[in-house]
């Protein structure tokens, strides 16, 4: 998000989901959309059915690559050279949108100098993508009247994640594919309310609506609005929290339903951090790996048991409605927080989430026009600056949020950890269709359908270590180890292992690297080195087919 915020002034998806079926060119990179965002994936397939050209860049063969007009199978971690290479070709062929560059952007000369070094020959060598495919991709994207870029964690979950994002922003601005329908840069947000959590300022550097905590005007506004003295320095990001805990700087953690042991990289480091705390409160639905370490567990309510709103990936604020009473003694999370706050001297007096939304609207300019009545049926896409405003379908029309779009000159950096002689296999992680996070393991149907990890390994690598399809193998990195079942498939190229993070029996984040992006501190989930060997069927799998 920081990447797009730097380039455009706003980090959200520029366009709307329902623009997809009528798009003519879709450029998808680092996104297994049909599995991670199935409805968006289906809309992409609808576009293909209507004749859209689909360019997919992914090291893995996924459903989208089968349906693509063109598939660029670049090596993991080579997104920046790939995009720079495409821009090199675009400039060489004169396919850039000079009028757009002139009128709407700054920093173009720096970009031009950088990408000059990314010749097709060099890029083909680094990325493994043949030159003619680079040309074809550049042509399809740049010569389209309108083209949209989509990406997800395959782009961001790298130490160079911000660089990757800014490269894509460069590509879009270079060709003028910005600020209109069916043209833009669209990060597909992972969780149901990751957009909303950011919007609400659940970030150490901003208040709701991305208002900086270090901006004195903003600081004064919130002190007044909340009637409290507020801190004006940046807080800890997640990796800082676990580092701080290990170092003794952080003493207590209030965990609001996250399970960082399973979902954050380098699980052993996370566990160690959590164990170092004096006090850990976890508000949860299930006894997660993290909850097991808690001093107090406060039982929250599921989304069906409470009212509220989620903000989806296209910035649409939509209602969550209470369908049933909270189970047992559970309480909606907003009530729990309120009660804790009030016991610590706060003065939180909300009778219903609608009242909280009213307060949000009063302090958050992009949510100013939102209330429960207005979003009752269709929701509203922020920015909604006033009660009269009908929401914003696509961003940056006529003008970027930051004024001029900023070209950044980005160079290729190696991942923090690449495969080597000792750990020769590149481990990359992602999602699959049948589970979401770690919660769907509690759905009987989904669990029965997809009960355990099926790590994807190329048959050649399988043959090397003597595992057959359906066997189990041992995977070890510098940080940890696990046992997983194996699916031999040429969906992954030789030398690459793919796993998901849904299964606590094969906890992939025991292996992943805790190194993170220099700006956003997003972990490098997508690349680390591991070694593999055949394993016996583990105890937890004795029931498996």
């Amino acid at each position: 998000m920081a990447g797009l915020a730097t380039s455009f002034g706003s980090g959200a998806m520029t366009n709307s989901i329902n623009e997809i079926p009528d798009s003519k060119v879709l450029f998808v990179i680092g996104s297994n959309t049909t599995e991670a965002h199935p409805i968006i994936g289906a809309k992409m397939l609808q576009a293909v059915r209507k004749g859209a050209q689909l360019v997919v860049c992914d090291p893995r063969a996924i459903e989208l690559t089968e349906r693509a007009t063109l598939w660029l199978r670049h090596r993991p971690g080579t997104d920046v050279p790939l995009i720079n290479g495409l821009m090199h070709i675009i400039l060489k062929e004169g396919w850039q949108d000079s009028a757009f560059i002139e009128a709407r952007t700054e920093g173009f000369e720096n970009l031009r100098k950088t990408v000059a070094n990314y010749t097709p020959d060099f890029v083909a060598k680094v990325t493994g993508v043949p030159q003619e495919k680079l040309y074809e991709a550049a042509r399809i994207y740049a010569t389209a009247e309108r083209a949209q870029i989509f990406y997800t964690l395959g782009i961001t979950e790298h130490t160079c994640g911000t660089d990757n994002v800014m490269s894509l922003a460069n590509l879009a601005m270079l060709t003028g594919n910005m600020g209109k329908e069916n043209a833009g840069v669209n990060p597909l947000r992972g969780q149901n309310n990751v957009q909303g959590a950011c919007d609400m300022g659940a970030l150490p550097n901003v208040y709701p609506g991305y208002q900086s905590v270090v901006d004195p005007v903003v600081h004064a506004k919130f002190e007044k609005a909340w009637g409290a003295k507020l801190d004006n320095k940046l807080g800890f990001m997640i990796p800082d929290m676990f580092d701080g805990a290990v170092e003794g700087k952080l003493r207590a953690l209030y965990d609001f339903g996250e399970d960082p042991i399973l979902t954050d990289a380098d699980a052993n480091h996370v566990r160690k951090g959590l164990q170092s705390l004096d006090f850990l409160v976890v508000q949860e639905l299930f006894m997660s790996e993290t909850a097991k370490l808690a001093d107090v567990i406060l039982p929250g309510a599921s989304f069906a048991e409470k009212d509220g709103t989620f903000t989806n990936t296209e910035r649409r604020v939509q209602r969550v409605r209470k369908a049933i009473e909270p189970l047992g003694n559970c309480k909606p999370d907003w009530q729990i927080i309120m009660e804790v706050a009030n016991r610590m001297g706060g003065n939180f007096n909300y009778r219903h989430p609608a009242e909280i939304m009213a307060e949000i609207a009063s302090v958050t300019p992009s949510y100013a026009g939102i209330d429960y009545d207005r979003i009752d049926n269709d929701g509203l896409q922020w920015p909604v600056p006033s009660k009269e405003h009908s929401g914003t379908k696509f961003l940056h029309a006529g003008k970027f949020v930051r004024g001029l779009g900023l070209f950044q000159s980005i160079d290729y950096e190696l991942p923090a950890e690449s495969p080597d002689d000792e750990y020769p296999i590149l481990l990359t992680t992602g999602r699959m269709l049948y589970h979401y996070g770690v919660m769907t393991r509690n759905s009987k149907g989904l669990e029965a359908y997809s009960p355990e990890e099926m790590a994807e390994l190329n048959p050649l690598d399988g043959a090397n270590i003597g595992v057959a399809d359906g066997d189990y193998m041992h995977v070890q990195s510098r940080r940890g180890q696990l046992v997983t079942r194996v699916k031999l498939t040429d969906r992954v190229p030789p030398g690459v292992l793919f796993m998901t993070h849904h299964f606590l029996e094969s906890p992939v984040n025991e292996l992943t690297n805790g190194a993170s992006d220099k700006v956003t501190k997003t972990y490098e989930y997508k690349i680390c080195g591991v070694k593999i060997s055949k394993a016996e069927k583990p105890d937890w799998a004795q029931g498996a087919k």
Partner: protein
Amino acid sequence: MSCQCAVEDGLQPDPKEIKLGEILAKYKQQKGALIPVLQETQEVYGYLPAEVLRRISFELKIPLSKVYGVVTFYAQFHLNPRGRNIVRVCLGTACHVRGGAKILETIQKELGIEDGQTSEDLRYTLESIACIGACGLAPVIMVNEDTHGRLTPDKLGKILAQYE
């Protein structure tokens, strides 16, 4: 989709598979190629085995359900092995009025199989057909490519016996 092709297993490539590969290569770039591919493939295999349909679907990028839909729509395609000799009894109008039904009945008795079935020794497959277009010779049957006309029930035994 993982490909378990014969070459990888170090086995001799199956000549039928090679033939299928040639058919697919010939038609891959042509639009509307599914039916000719199925026809030529059935020439090679005698019928259309499931794994062959999967390969055709994959190579022609046509969903398997659509391939299956086409195969089951047309009378010409068969999902199960067929007899060495295909006996087609014409039940067209002209043959009907000249006793085609009796011909079919007699052949059923003779071969011990019903319309649409294949004998256990795979010698014969019996089918009825709407019209061969040899109405002048009614009643007619076709055995493989040969047409036999002006039939009476007592001629049938001798005709069928010719086909091993």
